[in-house]
């Protein structure tokens, strides 16, 4: 079975250190990660392992203490629209209708009005919110609010999509629906994605590759290419669960997680 391995790194993080509290706490120690084009990477690890900090450094929302993040060769020093971000907290703006929310990101990029409006509707349809395009998100459910934010980010057409526990606040059913929606969107949009999650099942379902962080100080414990999927994406989650190799990987990750939690407690 041949597999096309996308090899070009879009983002290169080299030897990242992050310390807090004047060096008393080391959140990240010597973390190097290359993000390859069109690859979906999941950052997995126990609470407090620095996976979110690493994502925020890639986003440019936080500065590393040492080390460097480059995107296509240029050093990252701050946030930018080429690295779209989806947060765990709902960031759809309640003062704008769903449509205006999606338009807002494009407006910042200077997309002409007509194109903006057309694209906004296209992306709202994609996240199945076209019927509530002119409603304010205040009355939306958590999943709907998150879909507005997702459409807004994707409409900016970022080359990298960063997600910080994007479905963490949603209930199990909605999370599942959002995961399947992500698969559908990734099939269509072809992006380099990083998702921070502590949900092992979610990581295996969505990602091509799992970077497992160990806790305090955060370092890369394992960098796992999910071989059994062979680059395939499964529109239905249960089809993934039926794959040979799925449960082995899940068991392996759970064992690693337990090991880390135990080590952190000791």
């Amino acid at each position, binding site marked *: 079975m041949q597999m096309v391995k996308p090899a070009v790194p879009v983002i290169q993080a080299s030897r990242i250190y992050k310390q807090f509290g004047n060096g008393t706490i080391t959140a990240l120690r010597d973390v190097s990660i290359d993000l390859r084009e069109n690859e979906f990477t999941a950052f997995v690890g126990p609470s407090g392992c620095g996976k979110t900090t690493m994502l925020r450094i890639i986003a440019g929302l936080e500065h590393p203490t040492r080390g460097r993040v480059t995107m296509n060769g240029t050093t990252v020093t701050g946030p930018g629209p080429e*690295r779209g*971000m989806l947060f765990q907290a709902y*960031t759809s703006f309640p*003062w704008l209708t769903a449509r205006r929310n999606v338009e807002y990101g494009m407006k*910042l990029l200077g997309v002409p009005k007509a194109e903006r409006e057309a694209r906004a509707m296209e992306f709202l349809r994609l996240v199945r919110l076209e019927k509530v395009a002119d409603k304010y*998100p205040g009355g939306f459910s958590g999943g709907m609010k998150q879909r507005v934010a997702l459409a807004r*980010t994707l409409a900016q057409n970022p080359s990298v999509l*960063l997600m910080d526990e994007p479905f963490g606040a949603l209930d199990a059913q909605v999370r599942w629906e959002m995961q399947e929606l992500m698969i559908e969107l990734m099939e269509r949009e072809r992006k380099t994605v990083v998702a921070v999650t502590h949900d092992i099942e979610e990581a295996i379902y969505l990602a091509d590759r799992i970077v497992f962080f160990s806790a305090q100080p955060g370092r890369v414990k394992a960098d796992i290419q999910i071989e059994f999927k062979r680059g395939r994406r499964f529109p239905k989650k249960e089809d993934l669960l039926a794959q040979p190799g799925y449960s082995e990987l899940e068991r392996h990750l759970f064992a690693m997680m337990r090991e880390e939690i135990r080590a952190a407690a000791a």
Partner: protein
Amino acid sequence: MSASTVQDADLEHPTDTRAGSELDESPLYVAPRARMFEFRSRLSTTRATVLAAAGLGTFFLIWQLGHSFSSAVNQKFFPSPIQVLTALYTLFATNNFLADVLKSCYRVFVSFALASLVAVPVGLLMGSFKPVRALLGPLVSAWRYLPAASFIPLLLVWFGPNDVSKLALLFLGVIFFLIALVVDNTEAVPNEFVEAGLTMGASRRKTLTDIIIPAAAPAIMDSLRNMIAVSWTYLVIAEIVGAQDGIGAVMMRAGRFLKVDIIMAGILMIGILGVFTDILFRTVTRLSMPWAFKR
């Protein structure tokens, strides 16, 4: 539970025709009697209106009883509600009270508008940028503890017994509290909104105008609404200063002649105006920010 089980159940009862008889077979549920004081219970509009009327009614009843049971001499100093309402009517009908009311409204609204024009931008900047906050924070906090009324002599010397000194007093009375409230409202804007803006490429100016301001706007409107109430409370103090016109002046003049019914009519008038101001602010907020009232 697998998905097929749910489907099977649906096939068993394709329509709802049996629902009626099924409903009858189910044991009757007798709900406990609704209690009056249930934590955070809902209240129908009718009940709420009745209770509000009862509260107000009791107040006026006690007032009336207090008056009725007072001695003839004391009754002069404690008029009944009817006498106060009559006094209020007479004020409007024969003493051109409307001019005084409008003058007072002018003072409250103009001074408050000026205070807001300063406090809202200053508060937004202090709440958004730490250096601005460090620069102005201690100053604003200190001013808040100075009683505005203590500036009356100073304002009289500076501006004389005219409108300017009255507007200045009302301005000083609210501005520092208003700044502090707007700072809090601005800081309460979730960090994620700001970060979402930054990751979408919003400049600092855009972040302020497109994100911080609309996000804080409903809370700021609430702060304004609460502070204009304070402005009304300062009105009488302001109008004592070289009293010529305005509700406060009318009340002060009535005091000199022991016209208690007119003093109380003035108090009542300010109360009514306060309630209307409150409704005005609520209505403006509702109309200008309908999104803020979605749950």
